[in-house]
């Protein structure tokens, strides 16, 4: 089989765009954490990028059909790890999301994304019907909803929400009867207000501050207000790398993770923002193109799952820093500092390449 693969078929464009984004991320992390206790975050990020590239390469080596075959095993292991996180995980900012020690800490919930992309792809491509039956739909929602609930209980609303686009794009592609669609929408309308009572206080206040950031200007609204001020004072051209005063004077708490893009916007202005957004857009198109040229349904579902996940991340993270989305704690792929997210996104890119390399397989 390996004779069919050639590195000419590897998606060099995708790699190039992702590496450019990573480079921008490292530089921005360096600038944002200058003289802070996270000042070594940029080279940690470099190491993570290296590790992630290796992971991507490894994922490409095994035929994705083989990987799809291991989904039940991977799913079980991941659910087990989630339970383990509850038992032995370490607290960071008030929630248990991490297992492992020191350097080797990682977020199980991030890797679940990969498993879920594969799971949705396998489940849907095995269906022989032109439309999703209600029974299949319920089973799929259950399979995705269970780990989602576990992650939500960590509590990590942000990451659990990232499972939604994977599920949604699958259902959308598989074809949903409009009666079912109406039912889901109807249920959502009824259940969303009800779920307000299930939210934790900090989650409620995040939503409140999304509606009115001044509502709690020193507390939950602080980040959003400061982020908007930072972005706004960036102007058209920005204040220059390491010159963003909002960033350098630490008005943005933890400026290198979820809010890294607002520090970028302050220092590089609208022009810099546009460049990054265009790069992300190119990446999306490239992934979608891989979906279009996929040799089979599995490949198509995998690629589209990755694309949907990426689009969701962009919308929620960047929407959050400009104050158009509530604060949910979702990192920006490639730019935000953090190993687990970086690894999972590169593994997902590896899956896309995996599909691409085997597009002439038959």
């Amino acid at each position: 089989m390996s004779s069919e693969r050639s590195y000419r078929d590897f998606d060099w464009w995708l790699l190039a765009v992702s590496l450019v984004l990573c480079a921008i991320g490292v530089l921005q992390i360096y600038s944002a954490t200058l003289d802070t206790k996270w000042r070594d975050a940029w080279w940690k990020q470099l190491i993570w990028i290296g590790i992630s590239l290796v992971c991507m390469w490894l994922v490409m080596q095994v035929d994705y059909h083989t990987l799809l075959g291991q989904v039940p095993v991977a799913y079980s292991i991941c659910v087990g790890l989630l339970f383990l996180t509850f038992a032995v995980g370490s607290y960071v900012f008030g929630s248990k999301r991490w297992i492992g020690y020191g350097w080797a800490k990682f977020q199980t919930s991030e890797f679940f994304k990969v498993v879920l992309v594969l799971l949705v792809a396998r489940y849907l491509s095995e269906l022989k019907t032109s439309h999703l039956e209600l029974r299949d739909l319920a089973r799929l929602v259950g399979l995705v909803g269970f780990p989602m609930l576990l992650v939500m209980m960590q509590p990590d609303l942000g990451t659990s929400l990232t499972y939604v686009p994977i599920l949604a794009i699958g259902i959308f592609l598989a074809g949903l009867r409009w009666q079912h669609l109406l039912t889901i929408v109807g249920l959502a309308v009824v259940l969303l207000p009800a779920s307000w009572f299930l939210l934790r206080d900090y989650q409620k206040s995040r939503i409140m501050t999304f509606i009115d950031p001044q509502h709690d200007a020193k507390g939950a609204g602080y980040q959003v207000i400061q982020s908007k001020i930072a972005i706004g004072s960036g102007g058209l051209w920005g204040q220059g790398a390491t010159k963003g005063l909002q960033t350098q004077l630490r008005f943005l708490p933890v400026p290198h993770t979820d809010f890294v893009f607002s520090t970028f916007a302050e220092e590089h202005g609208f022009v810099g923002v546009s460049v990054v957004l265009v790069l992300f857009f190119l990446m999306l198109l490239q992934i979608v193109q891989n979906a279009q040229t996929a040799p089979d349904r599995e490949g198509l579902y995998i690629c589209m799952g990755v694309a949907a996940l990426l689009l969701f991340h962009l919308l929620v993270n960047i929407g959050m820093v400009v104050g158009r989305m509530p604060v949910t704690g979702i990192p920006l792929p490639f730019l935000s500092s953090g190993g687990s997210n970086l690894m999972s996104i590169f593994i997902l890119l590896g899956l896309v390449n995996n599909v691409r390399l085997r597009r002439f397989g038959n």
Partner: protein
Amino acid sequence: MTSFEAEQLEQRRKNPRLLSDDTTFAAGKIAFFQYLSVGVILFLIISFWDLQVRNPDFYSERAERNRIRSVPIPAARGKIYDRDGRIIVDNHSSFRVRLHRENLKLEHLKAIADGLNLDYEELYTKVKRFTSRPKYEAIMLKQDLTPGEVAFVDSHRGDNMLPELELIHGQQRLYPKGGITAHVIGYVGEVTETELNTPEFAKYTQGDIIGKTGIEREYNDTLMGTDGQQQWVVDNLGYLRYPVKDSKEAEPGKSLQLSIDLDIQMVAELAMADRRGAVVALDPRTGEVLAMVSRPAFDLNQFAGRIRASVWDGILNDPNKPMMNRAIQAQLSPGSTFKPISAIAGLETGEIDDNTRVHCSGGASYWGRYFHCHQRGGHGSMDLHRGMMQSCDTFFYAVGAKVGIERLSEYGDISGLGKKTGIDLPHEGSGLMPNSKWKIRTFRQKWFPGETISVVIGQGALTVTPLQLASSIGGLSMGGVFHKPHLIKDAKMPEPRMANWKRENVDRVVYGMYGVVNQGGTARSAAIPGIDMCGKTGTAQLASKELVDRNKQFADALKDNAWFVGFAPRKNPEIVVVALLENGEHGDRAAPIVRDLIKAYVDKKTAKATQKQFAEFVREMRGTFALFDMPIPFFGPLN
């Protein structure tokens, strides 16, 4: 069908997975996703456009407000000099500390109170009181920190320490030690919240240091200056990172030159020692105050920055009232020092003249009541000159009976008694020049003629302040020209008040006062050879002898007040001095103080004249030497 196609079909049938290879089913949906991506990216770009390009000013302004903090640069208060340009009040460098409330943690207050030696409860209530005020308003915690307190603030700047504290470098008042000039100068302090609510202080803000008493208060606007502002870039924790160029320099206060002559002031301070009372020296030609002393005094430096509560309570509750400026606030019977005014009233109304004779047998009866002379044995036959010299009460009883209270009070009034002199010091007392109208207004009673007999010798309801007495006797010595007393050298003053008195009448009174000192009168001990000083003693009773005898336990507190007023020279006087010794028993005890001051004044003047002559001589000699091209010998310092 070719064999290849048939083979393919065969393969598909064998391998069911290949049935799912058809991916065209999703083409439309993928296109939809692409449009969705375009939509999301556009939505984000428009959001950024909105913030960064459409109204960036709004956010840069807010970013500015975020990170710019104004730190006051305290303006140094103006210095205060004496009339010869010698410094009386200076400044020294000091630190004060402010509390910022933007990132205040209430649990830090305990540590702050401990480190700055503040009362925790007091600090807590202060902070609580400020909760309704805007956050950016900092609270002034303490002035004039000790080196230990400065070190405390300085060492708690780091992370997780006390970022709320801000050290400000400024200037602190440095006053003469030991209470010298204390009452004239006054002291400064932080404006209190009660004061801020009054119109006089409304223009100040919390933390301002303002004059509380004396010159410091009266000329606060001149002395205070305007604080500057230094803009600093701060980070989110409120640490000052670096200064911004755009700052406002502090405008120091203007300095003041007082009319006080430190030489004479020091003589007065020393002469008073620790006796209770006051000394005032005026230049009657201008009304300039040359010296003003009140005793007991207090050390102004205790008030300059931080005053300890114990010290403050001690001063406030001292029965001797050290805070009171007796020179302008003690309102006491002048006793016989009033007699020159009575005499001029008698002469000017024509009721007495050089030929008026009164026999003193130790007292006299008026309206059915017997009035004692202070000399129970009697003075014998008295005229105006001897009546003044011996301070014979009996003679002046006769004057009072003839002149009557209405006319007497008119002369007192034009001399400036019974009303404030208008000196440039706060809280001046007005004294009281009684008359029948006052009696009716105040007591709803008519004036008893017998009361006039008391007033004419400076007793009864009549009260004066030492400054008033100095001003009125000084004006009398000038022939009835009363200049408003003031403390600023060469100040532009209004025209003096003129009493239209006959020169010869004034000369008669002045001659009587000359006799008091130089012809064996009541103050012969105050005579200075070569200086024709005039004066008048006064021994003001606080209670009748009978009352004192009945209340032995208060004997000390009821001892007579001793007064002396003197001026020199007799013709064209240049200095008038009043000395008051509370419970000093007799006026001749106060006389030496006045003598010392006048002697100091004359000596200084003589020395200055000699110096000037010598300087002129040197200048001439230099000219002569220069004329002959000879080396100029050293003659010592000039001026």
